[in-house]
């Protein structure tokens, strides 16, 4: 199953989409850890990481607009950070340069930390997008299961995923109905309307959960789960995954 705003591009036929989900999950995780643990004073590894990511995106043919939309999400967090960090020394005894506003001082080390955090946050988002946009969610879950993630957690996750867009759509409908009735007035009124929307949605979700269980029980659900399609790890998948990991490790160690 796929949904328009979740794994929208996972059915494009490209070399990236054909790789086994397990391989992609491990590669993405290793890449993120590599990015996060690389000191930013070294520019070269970051250039290499972003070059690798660019290659991956070119291969996967994910539209640039989709990637950009995902990158936007860290910007509020980064902005809060950017307002403070350059004005705080990050090692002891660092002389700051007065900038003439509110006795604030500018510290180069703070600026380095800001650049580092920005590069790492964007790198992390790009890795996640590269993984999830090229992998149907159900396949990702099966891959994670083979990677020993507890089964019950994945089952719950797949239930949540299954009903996610139903509730998002329902909430959008409620919002539209609310706005069509000239939603306005005081804060307290807002809170009451939002609270009732939330309460109604909870009741609907709860009752849907009960009905889903009833339907499952009627079809012989006994608390265990079976999957029909086992994942097969091909030699090509393993080889490409190993090559990717070797590349990332080379960047991390050599540069």
């Amino acid at each position, binding site marked *: 199953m796929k949904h328009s705003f979740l794994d929208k591009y996972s059915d494009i036929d490209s070399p990236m989409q054909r790789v086994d989900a397990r391989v992609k999950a491990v590669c993405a995780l290793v890449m993120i850890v590599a990015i996060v643990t690389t000191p930013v004073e070294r520019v070269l590894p970051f250039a290499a990481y972003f070059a690798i990511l660019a290659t991956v995106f070119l291969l996967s043919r994910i539209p640039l607009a989709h990637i950009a939309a995902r990158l936007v999400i860290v910007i509020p967090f980064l902005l809060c950070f950017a307002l403070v960090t350059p004005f705080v020394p990050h090692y002891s005894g660092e002389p*700051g340069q007065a900038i003439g506003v509110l006795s604030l001082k500018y510290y180069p080390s703070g600026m380095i930390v800001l650049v580092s955090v920005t590069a790492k946050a964007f790198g992390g988002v790009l890795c996640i997008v590269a993984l999830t946009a090229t992998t149907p969610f159900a396949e990702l879950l099966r891959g994670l299961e083979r990677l020993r993630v507890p089964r019950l957690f994945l089952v719950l996750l797949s239930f949540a995923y299954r009903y996610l867009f139903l509730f998002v759509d329902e909430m959008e409908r409620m919002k539209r109905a609310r706005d069509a009735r000239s939603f306005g007035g005081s*804060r307290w009124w807002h809170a009451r309307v939002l609270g009732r929307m939330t309460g109604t*949605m909870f009741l609907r979700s709860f009752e849907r959960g009960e009905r889903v269980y009833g339907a499952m029980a009627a079809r012989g659900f006994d608390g265990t789960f079976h999957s029909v399609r086992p994942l097969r790890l091909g030699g090509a998948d393993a080889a490409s995954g190993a090559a990717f990991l070797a590349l990332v490790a080379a960047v991390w160690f050599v540069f």
Partner: protein
Amino acid sequence: MHIPDGFASMPINIASAAASVAVVGYALKRAGKSLDQKKIPLLGVVAAFIFAAQMLNFPVIAGTSGHFVGAVLAAVLLGPFEAVLVLALVLVLQCLMFADGGITALGSNIFNMGVVGALLGYAAFRGVMVILPKNKSGTLTAAAIAAWFSTVAAAVSCAVMLGASGRYPFELAVPAMAGVHALIGIGEAAITVVALALVMAARPELIAARPGASVQTRTAATGVWGVVVAGLGAAVVLAVIVSPYACSDPDGLEKKAIGESARRFVEAAKAEISKPEVVKVEVYANPGVAEEIENTDGEPHRILCAAGMDALAKTKVKEVENAEIFAGRVVSTEASGALHEKKFEQQGAVWTHSPIADYRLNISDKDYLKVGLAGLIGTILAFGIAFAMFSAVRGRKR
């Protein structure tokens, strides 16, 4: 509040991931063991609901908006560990679908919003329920307080993680995050209360299943007074015994700065004291550590010292090795005679250059009694006011 990759340091991420895995693992084990298979689809579906509800934005101030988290709502309606599980699911989905919150920071995010938000929020709910009447308004009041508390506590936990990672100064991150989320928490509390009231009306048995909560509108007066006295006693003990410790111990990061900077600071303080216009050097020190700075030029200056430095005022003694002094301020007289405060340049300290560096409280051994007493009076006063307000509200309802 979703921390992206690269913001928190790896030790912080690993530590909080370990804590989150432990709690979520325990919650999974409970959910798997419980005979109630009904819960399996239910938790997944409710996670989808929380995911959708978190898209409800409400305006806070000046263009910023907060969104509903739902940790306390889920904890009160489903149970604390079920709520942790639901929030963990939501955070994993947000991380994978929207890249909202990093993968390496996933453990930290689950810790902040799941473990702190839901577990601690539920603990607050149960704690407040102890002193509130077991009826509908009592349950709703407790849920409101717990929802506000859970939002602020999760934000503070997030700020502490960023601070401990050395990215933000604590004294900036913690008040800023707590301040904004104190406002967002009001929205969270209001939505939680209204939603809970609606669920109580439609499905009262869901709330009735929660220990400590009740949908009954009649008060069970038995035992209320005993609980009131016990709660007050606990609060007083905390105020008297714990509060003097709470304010003056430096935390880990500061402690690191102390060692490097203490020596240079002592040198500079000595030079400062020998100037004729200096009337007062305030040094904020650890309670219990006597800090003494020699007045080198021998002139009988009027040296007044702040709390923690009484020894300095009385005696001119030798310099103490490894003095644990960590922040200072010089007060000198200007030509006009007016007292003029000058920030003491403390070379080598890490955070003292930030705009709000000296908000720390300074307390000596001798002030323990005063602080304890202040804590006692404050607690009793707050309790009295709260109790009076509460009684008034209850009186009006009858």
